[in-house]
């Protein structure tokens, strides 16, 4: 799953500038952290080790890391990430790099709580070492600058989590839509589409396309659309039904709408929707009978 988070999060120059302004990351901050590169190189390994003592010390967070090889790999990634903090630039390339980290955590299913907890320790480890290595005023200034970048990174990671989840939801919705347009061949040249659920713009279009394709494929003469499972039939749904019927007619087939409840009939009349150009029946059974008649068949009682 290669999701392009940069575009998903609309991360362009403008968005970046806005984020930087809100997180108060100034050029001064960047220059200050860049000067700490030696410090970072000196402590990088120890800090990453310490971080992983936390993560591996808890059974639940440990479970995300399959074996030693994986731990070694993520540790080296973490080291790169850590050094990246001191790169001294906060441009789109930096953001792209940060998003990769968030995405890789999301991919292994590491929940935000572990991520945020680990980030807390990151800050504490940095704080301790800064105050050991530098005079207080300098250490404080450095820590302020670093904490801005860390907050900036955290926001990116959280956005990645959310975007990834929304992406999953969207894909599920697409899958459900597909499932919910089952065209059934009831008899030779007779098709049935039971509509269940909401008919939104996207789905209406899909229904139309599916029906037209199947009409041609099956050389169908009668198409029954049962709307008993559609909770609200408003003008939009009616409009879709009328348009679909007109298109189906062009292919030489008739559409029969069934499953119209008493409430829907009354509401349609009050709305002023004219469905007289479509064959309608209250019950699906009546629709099937009518459809069979269209292909020259009857349902007979066995003698």
């Amino acid at each position, binding site marked *: 799953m290669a999701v392009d988070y940069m575009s998903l999060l609309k991360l362009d120059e403008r968005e970046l500038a806005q984020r930087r302004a809100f997180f108060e990351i100034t050029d001064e901050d960047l220059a200050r952290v860049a000067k700490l590169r030696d410090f970072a190189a000196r402590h990088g390994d120890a800090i990453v080790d310490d971080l992983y003592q936390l993560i591996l010390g808890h059974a639940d967070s440990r479970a995300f890391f399959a074996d030693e090889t994986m731990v070694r790999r993520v540790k080296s990634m973490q080291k790169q990430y850590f050094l990246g903090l001191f790169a001294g630039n906060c441009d789109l390339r930096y953001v792209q790099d940060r998003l990769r980290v968030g995405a890789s955590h999301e991919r292994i299913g590491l929940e935000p709580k572990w991520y945020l907890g680990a980030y807390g320790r990151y800050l504490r480890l940095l704080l301790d070492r800064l105050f050991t290595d530098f005079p207080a005023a300098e250490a404080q200034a450095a820590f302020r600058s670093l904490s801005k970048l860390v907050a900036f990174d955290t926001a990116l990671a959280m956005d990645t989590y959310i975007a990834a989840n929304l992406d999953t939801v969207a894909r599920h919705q697409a899958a459900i839509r597909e499932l919910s347009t089952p065209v059934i061949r009831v008899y030779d040249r007779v098709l049935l589409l039971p509509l269940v659920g*909401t008919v*939104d*713009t*996207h789905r209406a279009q899909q229904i139309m396309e599916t029906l037209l394709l199947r009409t041609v494929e099956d050389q169908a003469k009668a198409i029954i659309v049962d709307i008993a499972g559609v*909770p*609200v*039939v*408003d*003008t*939009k749904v*009616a*409009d879709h039904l*009328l348009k679909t019927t007109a298109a189906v007619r062009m292919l030489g087939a008739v559409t029969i709408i069934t499953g119209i409840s*008493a*409430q*829907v009939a*009354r*509401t349609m009349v*009050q*709305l*002023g*929707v004219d469905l007289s150009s479509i064959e309608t029946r209250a019950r699906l059974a009546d629709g099937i009978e009518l459809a069979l008649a269209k292909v020259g068949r009857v349902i007979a009682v066995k003698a």
Partner: protein
Amino acid sequence: MTTQVMAQRELQIRCEDDIVLVRQAVRVMAQQLGFDAFATAAVTTAASELARNVWTHAGGGSALLEEIRLAGRRGVRMHFRDQGPGIADLGRALAGGFSTARSLGLGLSGSKRLVDEFNVESTVGKGTVVVVAKWARFSSTTG
């Protein structure tokens, strides 16, 4: 006697799926107030039309849903607000069969027939507010 507002709920209309949420909320409200099946279908459909107009013609807005009571009668009142382009020719939009969206153009005029009270205020360039109300057919005496 003035209409009392017993409860209210505001929903945002930001995407097409929000229309579904609005009408689901309206349906639940109507059923709780003892609307019969016809009245429930009518008020839910009106909500669907008006919420859809907010989304299609104004790009979004909000729906304020209220449970109301007047002299023992209970009803649903809905305020659909948007800051869209407004309706230039209200008379024509309300007459029915007119659409700027190549649709049936029956949403506004049809909703009016589905509810008991209907009011539109629209200013071009400012936005539109549609307020409608529907009463339960048989007034229930107890709260």
